[in-house]
């Protein structure tokens, strides 16, 4: 397979709330992910284009460009259209979940997300083995030997 899972996947977190970003970063970094942050949709697009992340975690309600618009734009980019994306919002209505998936998300979480759910979903969507890094507290990335 050409897209062999990255041993230390890069996650782009797009959220305008600094606390949420900090939380997400803390949880993901502790589990061995590399985390990049962006503060709104436009910033998110720029970061995504520049760093080619392995996973996007995107908030919906943001200034300048919301998460829906950002994902739709991103899905139009040849290089980014297949990057798995998780949308996270405080809204728990079915219609919000549906809109997120329509915009191009692969998964939807309602805030707040439990750390285990977040890392679990991030591992699945980036192809990291579930047993990776458990013994050493998640600091070390896996060896990427599987194909």
């Amino acid at each position, binding site marked *: *397979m050409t*897209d062999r*899972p990255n041993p230390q996947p890069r996650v782009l977190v797009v959220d*305008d*709330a*600094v*606390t*949420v970003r*900090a*939380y997400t970063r*803390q*949880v993901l*970094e*502790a*589990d061995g992910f590399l985390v990049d942050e962006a503060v709104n949709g436009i910033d998110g697009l720029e970061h995504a284009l520049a760093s080619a992340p392995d996973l996007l975690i995107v908030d919906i*309600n943001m*200034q300048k460009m919301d998460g829906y618009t950002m994902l*739709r734009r991103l*899905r*139009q980019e040849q290089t980014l*259209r*297949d*990057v*798995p*994306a998780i949308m996270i919002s*405080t809204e728990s*209505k*079915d*219609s919000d979940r549906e809109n997120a*998936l*329509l915009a*191009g998300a*692969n*998964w939807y979480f309602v*805030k*707040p997300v*439990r*750390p*285990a*759910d977040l*890392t*679990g*979903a991030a*591992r*699945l*969507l*980036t*192809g*990291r*083995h*579930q047993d990776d890094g*458990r013994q050493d*507290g*998640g600091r070390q990335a896996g060896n990427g030997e*599987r*194909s």
Partner: protein
Amino acid sequence: MSALFEQFVLESRELLEAAGAALLRLERDPTDTAAVNDLFRALHTLKGATALFDLAPFTRMVHAGEDALMAVRDGRAAMSGDLADRLLELLDTGAAWVDGLEHSQSLPDSAGARAQALETGLRAALGGAAETADGATPAGFAWVHELPEAERVKAAGRTVTAIAYVPAEDCFFAGDDPLDLCRRIPDLLLLRIEATGAWPPLADLDPYRCALRFRALSGAPKDELTRLFRGVPDQVSLATVAIPALAVPAPPAVPPSLATAMLREQARILGLPGSDEETAARRAAVLRAARNILAAEGRNAEGAALDRAAEGPSDALIRCIASLADDPAAVTQATPVPPAAPARRALRVDAERMDRLMALVGELVVAKGGLPYLAREAQEGRSADALAQGIKEAHGRIDSIVGELQDAVLRLRLLPLSRVFDPLPRMVRDTARRLGKSVELHLSGGETEADKDILDILGEPLLHLVRNGLDHGVEPPERRRAAGKPEVAALRVQAFQDSNGIVVEVSDDGAGIDAEAVRRKAVAKGALTVEQAAALSDAEALRLIFLPGVSTSETVSDLSGRGVGMDAVRGAVEQAGGRVEVASTPGAGTRFRLVLPLTMMVTRLVTVETAGALYGFPVTLVTGMQRVPHGAIRRMKHAESVVVQDAVVPLLRLRRLLNLPEDERERSGEAVLLVDLGGQPVALVVDAFRERADVVLKPMTGLLARLRGYAGTAVLGDGRLLLALNLRELV
């Protein structure tokens, strides 16, 4: 406190402040949709942040505010003074909770009840919520309750809007598209399309006549739907109805593993409608996601099956992913909670400033590289002159970089004054409202920056001056009218930076301060004799308000207190090494001016020598230095004075203040330092002037901390010790 929690406290404060500012804008102009959106967004973000921690009452309270704003945004409720008050109350409660959280990391015990009370109050302020309270279903909507449970499962337990839409038979000719209209219903929970009557035989069916009726439930408010159906008001009826909860709750499905749920979702995503381009993009993302999920699960063989299916049509791919999802082999466990990362102390720093710091360190490294070269030259026996020249040059380079480094580091601590300005609009609004005065606040210079410590000190005095201006300065509207002034008073707060540091001015166009009244008050308080008071110029008399107990107001109000404020203002500002000035024109207004150093970390001192020791005074207090011949010093009993710039200034001798022996040297005159003591100029005799020095002041510690008159100690560049004096405590 964890770094994350610290971050939360910081952000919450900012959000509450932003919300408060937006709310004030909104109250001034209820049609300001940008303000509604800003306020809504701030609360929304705050709600999300509180939800990260175990702060349910907080989340609930903010949620109630968010709901109220949504009602305003959607036009279901108007922005009233009452609603604004309640929202402000909510923000205040939030601010108090955040303060408490910072210390105890928990909400007060009463938080739940408080949140509930605010929620109820907000609902009452919104009004109109009673419509749904009685539970009665409006006529024509009985069908809502006859819905099979399976159909109303999404709406169960909610208050929703029921829609009965019977399009006119000839609606197609009117350009209506009933189905499209129904598909645009926001938050659609249920849609039933039924025939209006029995279907005629196929041969008689007229496809140009609409024979359908639409029944729908939506989570959106009635008003929003009224707008949606505004083209066909005669054909649609809307009602707010409460849908009872399901009698038997749906049996909880066995929770699928996350991987199974995700794979199922990927299959479902492939079936979503959209343009060709959209579906193609979704398919690419779904394929990659599904492959990754299988890889993460170690199910690589099945990944191959997925690849094969990917080459086929969408239906095959959907089936393939769905079957992979339901594969019983795919049992995963949730990842254990990762251990919390070690707490870090965080300081928010502007990236540009950090970059500058990095660049300077780079320069320093380069400059350092020149030193070994000099050492080698010394070993090789270069002439002392040439070496001295080289060392001087290296020193010059490093000196300038170090200077810039110091400046860059100080700048890391600089914050905009808007942090202390931000509470002012709210405070002015509330205070003016209570006093029945109309005041417009003009803020400027909020972008001026000062050290964090200075800001902390500035906050209180600033509030005090503003409150004072509102209470004592600004006249009631009728007095302003009588005086021919505009009814709305102007209160100005402006900040700017000048060579001495930052200047903050608080001015009003009110009645001004009556110098004569201040004189009388000071005499009555026993601070001065009648003669002393009479001898003061008006400008000098005004400064008396900074003395303890001298208030200019005829009535004591609960707002500005009893005249203790001005003394406190002076004390706080001087403690930070600054000074305060006042100027007033009766009938035209008053201006207070606070002059503060840019930073407290490095204090610029004027140093003097007296009795063999070095003393320093903050440069912001020193207004001049001059030599005064003995003949120019006047003596009256024990007091001495000197004329400086046509003003009589009391003369003090530092040796006497410090109980040091008298100066016995032969000399023709005295070295006199002119010092501003909170508006009161004083001439201070010292032995000799020395250079200015930038020092990092260390406060007196231990037993010495109790000594009055000393602001701190500092070590000069050449190792000499210096005592910084607090002259006000000595005089």
